[in-house]
């Protein structure tokens, strides 16, 4: 265990998330069981008031995930000095088996929270709150996820042992210390470029069709937007690892998705990640929202919101591709000849 402020902060944040979700659980169960909009009873009025608290709570969870994911990566970067062979955040996250799963779980919770917020927004637009039960059932499902985030982070940090000097001899020489893999494996650039541009282009096309085209009668188009957004997200990360990062670092072997967030590279990573994450979250939301288009009260709303979210997704992915391409074009590295 490394006793360090950023780690304490991260664990506290994860614990806070999980505690809030846990505290909300009995109320959410109550809401699912007793919700009856036709009634004007005091219990119903109380439940209605509770929905505001839950929205605030989920918003906080969402913001917390964004902030703590950033802090997590930042901190991993900083701690890489403490592990033999770790050159940057990737090395720290590889220091034990919990590192990357913890990061993935956080991202998953982030996307789940944004999806919830998208549903909540649509539902709040309909006078009969048609999704109220679905929404709170979904929220209950997030509790195990929040617990998983805490569990993985805790294990990751507890099992980190820095390679410091011990009294008898230098750490390295006491045993044949296993050196950490400091790079992620990546596709060869040519293939990766294909995956990257094809994946993103199809997501942009589908999202634009959903966003600006005529409203679809069926759900398949929205579903396709969601799927392609997920795939485009994966393709974007693949591309980042395989070639975009290389162009930014102007180094043919440094496959790191985190160093681009650093000051040395002028924080250019934020320019890429913000549109990418916004687009992916919006794309998933667009698909999810459209699934409820047949509920009474949502006939118009679901389509409208789905289209609006799809527009965000299309714009976000486009922005991401443009920025990434501009970064490649302005790089001095020659990867393909």
């Amino acid at each position, binding site marked *: 265990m490394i006793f360090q402020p950023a780690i304490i902060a991260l664990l506290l944040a994860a614990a806070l998330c999980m505690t809030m979700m846990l505290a909300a659980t009995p109320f959410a169960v109550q809401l699912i069981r007793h919700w009856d*909009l*036709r*009634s*004007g*009873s*005091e*219990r119903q*009025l109380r439940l*209605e*008031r509770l929905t505001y608290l839950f929205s605030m709570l989920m918003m906080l969870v969402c913001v917390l995930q964004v902030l703590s994911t950033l802090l997590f990566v930042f901190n991993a970067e900083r701690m890489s000095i403490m592990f033999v062979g770790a050159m940057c955040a990737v090395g720290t996250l590889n220091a034990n088996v919990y590192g990357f799963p913890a990061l993935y779980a956080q991202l998953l919770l982030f996307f789940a929270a944004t999806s919830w917020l998208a549903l909540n927004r649509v539902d*709040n637009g309909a*006078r*009969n*709150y048609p999704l109220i039960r679905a929404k709170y059932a979904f929220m209950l499902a997030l509790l195990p996820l929040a617990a998983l985030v805490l569990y993985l982070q805790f294990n990751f940090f507890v099992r980190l042992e820095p390679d410091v000097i011990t009294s008898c001899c230098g750490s390295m020489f006491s045993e044949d210390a296993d050196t950490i893999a400091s790079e992620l494996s990546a596709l060869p650039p040519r293939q990766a470029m294909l995956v990257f541009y094809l994946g993103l282009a199809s997501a942009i096309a589908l999202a634009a069709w959903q966003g600006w085209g005529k409203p679809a009668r069926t759900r398949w188009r929205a579903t396709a937007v969601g799927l392609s957004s997920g795939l485009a997200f994966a393709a974007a990360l693949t591309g980042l690892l395989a070639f975009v990062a290389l162009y930014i670092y102007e180094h043919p072997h440094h496959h790191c998705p985190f160093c681009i967030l650093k000051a040395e590279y002028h924080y250019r990573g934020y320019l890429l990640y913000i549109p990418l994450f916004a687009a992916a979250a919006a794309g998933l939301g667009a698909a999810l929202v459209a699934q409820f288009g047949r509920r009474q009260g949502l006939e118009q709303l679901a389509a409208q919101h789905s289209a609006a979210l799809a527009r965000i997704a299309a714009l976000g992915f486009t922005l991401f591709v443009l920025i990434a391409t501009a970064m490649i074009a302005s790089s001095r590295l020659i990867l393909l000849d």
Partner: protein
Amino acid sequence: MLELNNIRKAFNQGRHNEHWALRGIDLEIPPARISVLKGPSGSGKSTLLSILGCLARPTEGRVRLDGEDISALPERFLTEIRRRRFGFIFQQFNLVRGLSAIDNIILPGIPDGQPRAKLLARGEQLLTELQLDHRRDAAVEWLSGGEQQRVAICRALLNDPTVLIADEPTANLDSKLAGEFLLILERLAQAGRTIILTSHDPLVIEADIVDQVFSLRDGRLTGVEIRHPAFRLTR
């Protein structure tokens, strides 16, 4: 236009001090008229007024506004209806202390995000109509009772509501000011606004401009008095 159907309202439901403030009210408020709810304190007239004004939802029963059932609307939508269609004048005027008259008046326009310039223009126009433009920037706690009430009326009219609700509006006014207030009400009713008051002030109940009086006792309607309907219909 406003219809109540078997309205019941309970407080502290399910507890030992459960109390039914309204026990089955049916009534209809006609448009562009002045209606008064009268009754002793504890008769449920304030509770009834808050249900009429969409401030509260009935425990049971139906409320219809222009034919649409609004009794099962969540607070989010009820508030929107209240903001756009109802204006309120409270007994204590309920102005926000520390803010100027004009800042108080534009408060109901904030949730709709109207531009400030537009809101100010509308507020100033209302102040002029009520001959209060010289007090535009005065902090409300420095205004007299009559002036405070007129600021409250301006605030109630900001979003151009069709219904105006006033709770014991003359309780804190002397006879002269109460008379002036009634004149203002008459003008508003003539302009087509529906006005609902609660009062036990004879000056109000017996005023010539009142069209209907509903009497309440123990949460039930005990009488409806409709005055000169023929005269009103021709107006």
